[in-house]
């Protein structure tokens, strides 16, 4: 049985159905991200796990214990907030030791634990500072230490990096992951940033309109998106139309080029199918093993540093592709005619 079990969780605020039949089983020590646009219900699920919202129906079990109706202060869960939420009247050491003091631990034990936590987050010597004397990154580290000090069963992170600037965000997300691995604590991380979710997580839950669209490893989510929403929300995606010649045999036509997908296709009424392809699977020019070759005209060229993103007009549609920047090969010119190639196994057919 999973360590954290969420079963048929539902939540409505008045007439608004925010979370619909949410199911998830998280193993001990696993790092799971809830990814989705704002208003998709990811924070609401997290807040129900924390106990700040009461589910309309469904259950939450931690380590076999039903916590659905427990109050937040009875759940032994650590939480880190976007706004840090450090107690302004307490020093760093008092903030970190708060949970232990509440639990009535002896003074010496609290002091030891606080010193350990300060070392863990790399801020020894700052114990007597007040929160307003710390930078945003330092405050969030202290908030993490405070959440972990009382050895919670589950760690919940509610967009903890959103208020920080880009560089600190990347550093801190690596640190969070390291600390999480070191302690082996079961963690749920809520974010709207796909890069954060993909780079940090063991598994990602992509949420859309209160539903978990797909649950899978970052690799699965990115390479085999289950729905159109997941495909479009995670990474950049090209959508091109094709006409179906033989659905059962997987034969289609992209523009005038016949393509054999070698897998069965859903039968559509109008005989059309939508294909998705990632920019990095498309190449300029002909290449071996990429048998789908299309002709087009270069519409835009964006120089991004290590990568050059090119938009090619193929018939009535646009296809974005990425090529690596090479000093000896300048980017193609806008308006020139080119051929692009893609392997048929990189053409994804989307369900919904």
């Amino acid at each position, binding site marked *: 049985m999973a360590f954290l079990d969420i079963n048929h969780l539902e939540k409505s605020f008045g007439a608004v159905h925010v979370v619909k039949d949410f199911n998830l089983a998280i193993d001990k020590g696993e790092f799971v991200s809830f990814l989705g646009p704002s208003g998709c219900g990811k924070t609401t699920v997290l807040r129900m796990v*924390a*106990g*700040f919202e009461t589910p309309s129906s469904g259950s939450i079990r931690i380590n076999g214990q039903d916590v659905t109706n427990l*109050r*937040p*202060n*009875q*759940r*032994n*869960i*650590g*939480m880190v*907030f976007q*706004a840090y*939420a*450090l*107690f*302004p*009247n307490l020093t760093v050491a008092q903030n970190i030791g*708060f*949970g232990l003091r*509440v*639990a009535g631990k002896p003074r010496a034990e609290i002091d030891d634990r606080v010193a350990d936590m300060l070392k863990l987050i790399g801020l020894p010597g700052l114990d007597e500072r*007040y*929160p*307003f*004397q710390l930078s945003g990154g330092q405050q969030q580290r202290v*908030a993490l230490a*405070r*959440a972990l000090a*009382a050895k919670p069963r589950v760690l*919940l992170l509610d967009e903890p990096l959103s208020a920080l600037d880009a560089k600190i965000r990347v550093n801190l997300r690596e640190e969070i992951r390291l600390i999480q691995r070191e302690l082996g604590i079961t963690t749920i991380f809520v974010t709207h940033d796909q890069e954060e979710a993909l780079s940090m997580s063991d598994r990602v839950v992509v949420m859309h309109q209160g539903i978990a669209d797909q649950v899978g490893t970052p690799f699965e989510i990115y390479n085999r998106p289950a729905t159109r929403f997941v495909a479009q929300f995670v990474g950049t995606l090209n959508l091109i139309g094709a006409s179906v010649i033989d659905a059962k045999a997987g034969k289609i036509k992209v523009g005038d080029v016949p393509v054999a997908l070698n897998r069965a296709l859903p039968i559509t009424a109008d005989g059309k199918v939508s294909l998705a392809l990632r920019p990095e699977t498309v190449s300029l020019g002909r290449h071996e093993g990429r048998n789908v070759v299309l002709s087009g005209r270069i519409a835009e060229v964006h120089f991004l540093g290590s990568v050059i993103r090119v938009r090619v007009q193929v018939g009535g549609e646009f296809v974005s592709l990425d090529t690596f920047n090479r000093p000896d090969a300048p980017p193609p010119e806008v308006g020139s005619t080119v051929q692009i190639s893609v392997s048929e196994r990189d053409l994804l057919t989307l369900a919904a």
Partner: protein
Amino acid sequence: MNGNRAWSWIVILLGSLYFLLPLAGMFEFSMRMKRDGYSFEAYRVVLADPQFQHTFGYSIVLALLTIVLGALIVVPTAYWVRLRLPSARPVIEFITLLPLVIPPIVIVFGYIRIYNTSSILPLTGSWWGTNILTLFGYATLALPYMYRAVDTGLRTIDVATLTEAAQSLGASWTRILATVILPNVLISVLSGAFLTFAIVIGEYVFAALLNINSFGPFMVWMGGNRAYEPSALAVIAFIITWACMGLIQLVTRFSKFSAARR
């Protein structure tokens, strides 16, 4: 200096004279108890009066108790309204403003009517009962100042998130109020407290009608029976009030963790 500026200064000067001249006159008069020049004789007499010591001490104790009671009523109320019942805020604000709208004499007549010796709860029948009734009455008078001060203080902190953070760390409601909310609004509570102190020290209507021996009735009695001492007493009362105002400033300035919030 142009004409506008000159006018501003003239207005300020006239305003200052209007406020300060009576004070200066009163102070000057209070110093003339001895015929052969200025002295602090009137102050000595007032301060040495056992009646002054008794009533003043009594009023101080009453004021401190009022502050404690007021804080106990107001802090949890204002906190709960901010956290869970934001829609009730206008109603609560209106209720706390009532003591400013309803004259104290009306309130105290209401009290006497409801808590007299022939009622179910005959508070006015005993010394303790009268004192408790006075205390509750003063807490009511302090409500407008206390509530506004505390509510403003709560606005400067993220009440909801701090509460959730404390809850997730296992804290109970009492613990959250005592260790997270109260310390963060302490400055506001104190500024409300000093105003309350100033009001209770000089309060007359409640004290006179409930027949308690506090500082307000003593000042009035003195005013009717002596010549120089009432002026000295008024100056003393002024100094106390101003000291309270000064303390509000001091406490606010020297709070060590509040720097970030200003």
